[in-house]
């Protein structure tokens, strides 16, 4: 099972690829919209790429709850252990 830091690192790579945000800026306390400037369409791309990378399902209803990088990492951790 991947650690929190491993998930954060992999997610940071995805956010960098999709939105051009430097991977080091993708920290747990950062808001996707307010801090990282990831718009709604890019967020959809991040979610789909994350589903593939982490082999989890992130329902559309859930995406609006993933406000910070930490929210997303926590959701992925829960989904992987479920």
């Amino acid at each position, binding site marked *: 099972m991947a650690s929190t830091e491993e998930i954060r690192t992999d997610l940071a790579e995805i956010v960098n690829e*999709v*939105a*051009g945000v430097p991977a080091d800026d993708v920290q747990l306390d950062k808001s996707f919209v307010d801090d990282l*400037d990831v718009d709604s*369409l890019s967020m*959809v*791309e991040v979610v*789909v790429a994350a*589903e593939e990378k982490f082999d989890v399902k992130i329902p559309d209803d859930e995406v609006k709850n993933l406000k910070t990088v930490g929210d997303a990492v926590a959701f992925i951790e829960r989904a992987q252990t479920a």
Partner: protein
Amino acid sequence: MNRPSNRTVVVTGLGATTPVGGDIASTWAALLAGSSGVARMRHDWAEQLTTTIAAEVAVEPTEVLERVRARRLDRSGQLALIAALEAWTDCGLGGSSPPSEGAGDDAADADRATAGSVDPDRIGVVCASGIGGIQTLLANYDALVQRGPRRVSPLAIPMLMPNSPAANIGLAVGARAGVHTPVSACASGNEAIALAADMIRLNRAEVVLAGGTEACVHPLPMAAFGSMMALSRRNDDPEAASRPWDVDRDGFVLGEGAGMLVVEAAEHAAARGARVYAELAGAGITADSHDIAQPDPTGMGATRAIGRALDDSGLDPGDIAHINAHATSTPQGDVAEALAIRAALGAAADQVVLTATKSMTGHLLGAAGALESIAVVLALHHRTVPPTINLDRQDEAVALDIATKQRDLPAGDLAALNNSFGFGGHNVALAFRTA
């Protein structure tokens, strides 16, 4: 015919990325040198097709644009943005930073911030395409079929919609006077420039970025054009395949690229001290109403387009020193156009130096009119005409003076035409004159 207004329209900026060069300087040098941009395709899908050659861009757009900006654009949008930003910088309104230095929305903001003193409400964009964002469409269809609807990109629609290149250019330069996308197959690029002139004459804008883009070197469009028997199959000799007016021509060579011109009200250009390449004197737009794909064999629609362009610009046939012909290297089209030029200009056709730069660039479809308008503007500006290559034996049905070597134009006031015709029977002739 009355002009809609007496506002004079001039060309103050040029930008291009083409099969023979990644910018205006390299493209123009290659055209004058008679260099072909046609080559065997490198794609692994090419070998299954009857035509395995194409004129792909000399410089990959992803080498020029910042990565995140590029991945949000269809290839046609990438090429258009590169050409537009070069033209915008060239006309003195775009600042000096190349597009590769920016990133995403920050770059758009930076471009906008350097727009100088032009009121955004007076800046327009008209960027045409013949086919649109077909590579994005087909890549997402592949994703849908192979991996399911969840894998279809949320960016697919804003990337594939035909107005995407125009809209993205508008965002980059902060254009608010109107952003348009004419679609008239291979006449689209010329139609864009004609509509830009209208925007200025009707006083809806002072400055308009106008041109066209195309990026459909993909197996589906190539198979489709192949099924129409429209493409050259001279696969063993790519550089000789595009041969307008030659007796051995056997179809066009598909090209990709973009060309953009900054079209501006003359008084606006003069007030800011802009360099003027040429005057965009007038335009003529007609439709054949003959056949969806074949040109009217009499060339009547094209004749009327040239006539209207002369009327609109107040020029006489004897004023025309040069024509960059549509001349795609198809058996029927090249002859129909030659008849049209003869019919429209009469005996004055004998004084005209013709060229077909498609012999070097291939056929850029919706970008063709834009690229060839740029060639005409530069021919007038530098008073020299690029050659038509591969014209070894001129078709006897084409009784016109075609430059097979670079040919200089005389001093004095000169005018020139650029013809573009498209599937659907669209005919657009543009008239330019020396500034």
